[in-house]
């Protein structure tokens, strides 16, 4: 018997606004055989939108592809363009990019914590997390001169504007005086809470070999004990000069995946602090290379990958006559929503599916891009 449960209900016509997601479960008595996440309304042929457009137009559209990690998409596109046009980005711009991406990583982790706490019934914690995410989004807006957080900051050749010392001071002030203490509260109230461990420990276990076979990356791969982080293994920007240790666990169950968010947030704060220290030693004031797209290019296509907020994020960009010929992104949400979810063991109760789904950090709008 096939039964469909609405996951995100959209009251508007799905053809007008995106957001309709449902889970289709093939039920067999009280257990289930297969789970399919129906994301048909999220489908868009991105290549049709971008083909034939120039880079300046594409640059404006790129951050709108995801509200969770818009600047990671910008970073990917910029890396691919810089690879094609053979550009060396100034060190100052690289540091700004790293700081912004790590702030965005924290904001995304808070969003994931929000959805998990909502599912598990931690109502007070849910509001804390959402409130703190708003504060962190304000830091991002601060970086881009109070524009919308989906506006451009990372562009091919560097960053759009310089970041002043007082903006950096606001950032350090926020970590030291507020957020570091807040994380301790999180640990007391949520991560070390016995209710959380009793509800989620041993739930939604994914086998290490299955995870590797199905190409799950990011937090899910690391929570199963595989030491793979693109920031470490194939470093971009200034990650090769930064010292941090990826967070590893013995087995990938819901509890460990939630706990790894805590350590990932701490890692990100550490990376931001190290980047700020590095920024103090930079003498060169340059933050942008001019006339990027008027240069000759040696190759016509580029493939790049970075560590997104929930796993590997890849881009394939091909150009022809200084216009985009083909553009394709692949996010880890694509793999997790189509393959990883189906590796749940049969003994799992159907009521736990939503908890397991939220612990996979799937962003619906990133699945088919």
């Amino acid at each position: 018997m096939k039964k469909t449960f609405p996951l995100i209900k959209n009251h508007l016509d799905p053809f007008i606004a995106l957001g309709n997601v449902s889970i289709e479960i093939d039920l067999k008595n009280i257990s289930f055989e297969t789970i399919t996440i129906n994301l048909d309304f999220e489908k868009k042929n991105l290549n049709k939108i971008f083909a034939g457009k120039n880079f300046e137009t594409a640059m404006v559209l790129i951050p709108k592809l995801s509200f969770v990690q818009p600047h990671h998409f910008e970073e990917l596109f910029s890396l691919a363009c810089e690879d094609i046009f053979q550009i060396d980005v100034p060190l100052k711009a690289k540091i700004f990019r790293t700081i912004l991406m790590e702030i965005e990583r924290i904001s995304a982790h808070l969003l994931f914590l929000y959805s998990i706490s909502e599912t598990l019934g931690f109502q007070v914690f849910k509001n804390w997390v959402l409130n703190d995410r708003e504060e962190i989004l304000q830091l991002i807006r601060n970086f881009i001169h109070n524009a919308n957080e989906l506006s451009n900051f990372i562009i091919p050749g560097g960053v759009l504007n310089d970041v002043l010392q007082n903006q950096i001071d606001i950032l350090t002030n926020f970590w030291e005086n507020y957020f570091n203490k807040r994380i301790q509260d999180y640990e007391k109230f949520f991560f070390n809470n016995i209710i959380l461990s009793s509800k989620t420990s041993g739930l939604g276990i994914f086998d290490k070999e299955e995870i590797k076979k199905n190409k799950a990356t990011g937090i899910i791969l690391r929570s199963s004990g595989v030491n793979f982080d693109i920031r470490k293994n194939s470093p971009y920007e200034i990650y090769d000069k930064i010292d941090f240790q990826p967070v590893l666990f013995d087995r990938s169950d819901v509890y460990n995946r939630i706990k790894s968010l805590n350590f990932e947030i701490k890692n990100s704060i550490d990376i931001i602090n190290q980047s700020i220290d590095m920024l103090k030693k930079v003498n060169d004031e340059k933050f942008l290379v001019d006339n990027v797209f008027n240069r000759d290019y040696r190759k016509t296509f580029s493939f790049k990958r970075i560590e997104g907020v929930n796993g590997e994020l890849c881009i394939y960009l091909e150009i022809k006559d200084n216009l985009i010929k083909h553009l394709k992104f692949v996010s880890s949400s694509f793999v997790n929503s189509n393959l990883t979810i189906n590796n749940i063991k049969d003994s799992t109760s159907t009521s736990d599916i939503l908890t397991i789904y939220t612990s996979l950090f799937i962003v619906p709008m990133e699945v088919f891009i």
Partner: protein
Amino acid sequence: MTPIFYTDSYFLVNDIKKLIAKDIVETNDSIYIKSPQKEFLTYILDFLYNKWSYKFLSMIVSIDEKDFYILKYIISSTLIFKSIIVEIVIPKDDPVFTTVSMIYPVAVIFERELNKKYGIIFEGNVETKDLITKYLNSSGEKF
């Protein structure tokens, strides 16, 4: 045990040139192989998977040209920094190819998307089964 990372790809490139194809372009973060025939693809991927530990299929890109599709299989490794791009060409009048899901299980979903977007049929992939039947019916071929 800490894994060994290969920063130098000299031996890998040499190996590919000797055994697979001479048409190779190497850049600072990727190796580009143009397969002389589309049938060689599974052999190339199997070789890279088993010998050089390229265990991740990052994406399959399909580029729509006038008379043919260009399929680019992009694979990566946790041990070697460089990604490998293997390119094959499929004619539009016969858009049938073999699945690579026996090497990379994740290929099933990539192939399913290509099947829906461009109508390319991947033999051995159950997700494209219906379309194979339609193709056989329309072309008049028999089992």
